């Protein structure tokens, strides 16, 4: 539990989040190491998604939602910075692929550039290609970047969403159960991609799939009923958990 990481990329301090009067997470203290994959696991409703939605200040966009505590990014409290600027540094991929249905593949990936920084056409072309390559989608779409984003399969759409998030040039990438709407083959592709991405990005992934957490992550945090139960290197969590609750969960006794 009291694992300490040198110079974490992100860190939550006594983080609590509320929906109106009900508290979804309580006093979470977590450190997310730089350029590693950290998995957040736990049963449905334990606050995993709420937690990562606090890390890019998306939680507060819901009416009556509220956050207490701090989230540090490179030592700076996110909640004292401009929310839109925070979200450019902390990208997010959602549970269900959510490409902009009215836009082409190209325009989806270039959206963060077109709406935020308005670079030249060359820079934009270059970023789109790089992001699509980075998201392992380029080879499949290079001949049809102008066709509708909705013409892609579910797995391709999710990689498109990853490419779109990367095009904003984030430092951290949040993934909220990115494979739960995908078939096993598409899931395997995304998992491969995650291990590539950690070379350049700090990845934080929420998953209800423990095998997935074991496969892709370097560190794992186990949440239960809105509280952090245990945090440590993934091998430790899965092979020698310190908490009885963690052991019960990963051996499938509940959840």
């Amino acid at each position: 539990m009291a694992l300490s990481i040198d110079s974490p990329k992100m860190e939550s301090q006594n983080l609590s989040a509320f929906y109106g009067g009900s508290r979804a997470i309580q006093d979470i203290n977590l450190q997310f190491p730089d350029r590693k994959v950290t998995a957040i696991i736990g049963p449905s409703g334990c606050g995993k998604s709420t937690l990562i939605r606090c890390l890019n200040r998306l939680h507060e966009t819901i009416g009556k939602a509220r956050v207490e505590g701090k989230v540090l990014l490179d030592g700076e409290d996110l909640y004292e910075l401009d929310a839109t600027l925070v979200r450019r540094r902390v990208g997010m991929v959602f549970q269900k692929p959510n490409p902009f249905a009215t836009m082409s593949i190209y325009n989806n990936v270039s959206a963060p550039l077109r709406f935020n920084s308005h670079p030249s056409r060359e820079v934009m072309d270059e970023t789109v290609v790089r992001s699509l390559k980075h998201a392992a989608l380029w080879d499949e779409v290079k001949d049809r970047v102008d066709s509708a984003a909705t013409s892609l399969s579910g797995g391709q759409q999710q990689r498109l969403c990853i490419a779109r998030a990367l095009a904003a040039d984030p430092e951290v990438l949040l993934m909220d159960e990115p494979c739960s709407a995908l078939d096993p083959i598409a899931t395997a592709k995304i998992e491969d991609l995650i291990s590539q991405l950690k070379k350049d990005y700090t990845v934080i992934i929420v998953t209800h799939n423990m095998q997935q957490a074991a496969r892709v992550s370097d560190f794992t945090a186990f949440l239960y009923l809105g509280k952090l139960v245990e945090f440590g290197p993934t091998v430790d969590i899965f092979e020698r958990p310190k908490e009885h609750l963690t052991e019960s969960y990963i051996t499938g006794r509940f959840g």
Partner: protein
Amino acid sequence: MNFDRSVRRKVFSRGMTVLTGLAIVAIMVPLVAVIYETLLLGGADLNLGLFTNGLPYPCSPQPGVTCQQGGLVVPITGTIELIALSSLVAVPIGIGAAIFSVEYGRESPFARIVGLVSDVLAGVPSIVAGAFIYALVLLYDPSIVFSTISGSLALAVLMVPIVARTCEEALRTVPNSVREAALALGISRWKATLRITLVSALPGIVTGVLLAVARSAGEAAPLLLLLGNACTHPLQGLNQEGCALPLFIYQGATAPNANYIALAWAAALLLLGLILVLSVISRLTLNRMAKRMRGG
């Protein structure tokens, strides 16, 4: 016993099918009759001259007298001006109200009040809207009380709730995941709203605007009150008295002269055609949107 029941059930089922079928016929008959009658009486005089000529001298055929047919260029232009001007006022206000109540107000009590207000406004009788604008314009500038401008304002009052309500519906059909996707990319709220959410809702918004235009294009009551009567004049400025198709239908149909009555039917046909076309286009855009939302 069993046999009886199944027979009764079948008879009942058939009976109900026939009754509901009759209801359809009861709806269709007036529509078809109106279109048929209008085509019959208005179609005869349908020619290009309708769009280029002004109203003729009032005249009924007698031995030794040939009547001019004349045309509807003044009422047609008037209707176009009224539609353009009233849309210019009503569309931004309606869309703005919808954006506020769906995108920004969300759960606030004020947004609910806006919704309630637009419902009540939608139920305001058109003549009351006309009287309201009459009083308002009178305060502002008595010289333009009877003008295309004040007619347009009254029509705008009728259009705003239609645009607002249909836009709200259209914005609500845009999944929340689209808004979150935009926000999560660090796109600011207003840019996300204007350039992503609104664009996604565009077919629904177009539908709403077309329905509102169809409603106001056929409206006569506030125009009888506010437009004055310049149907026989050549075209005048927007701050002068004007003319419109519904207004001319009223005048033409009640005139004693054969050529005016015939022109009134032609005007009715044009108006009916315009409204049918608008309704069909708006229905088609809505279908296309529904198809896209299903991912087709």
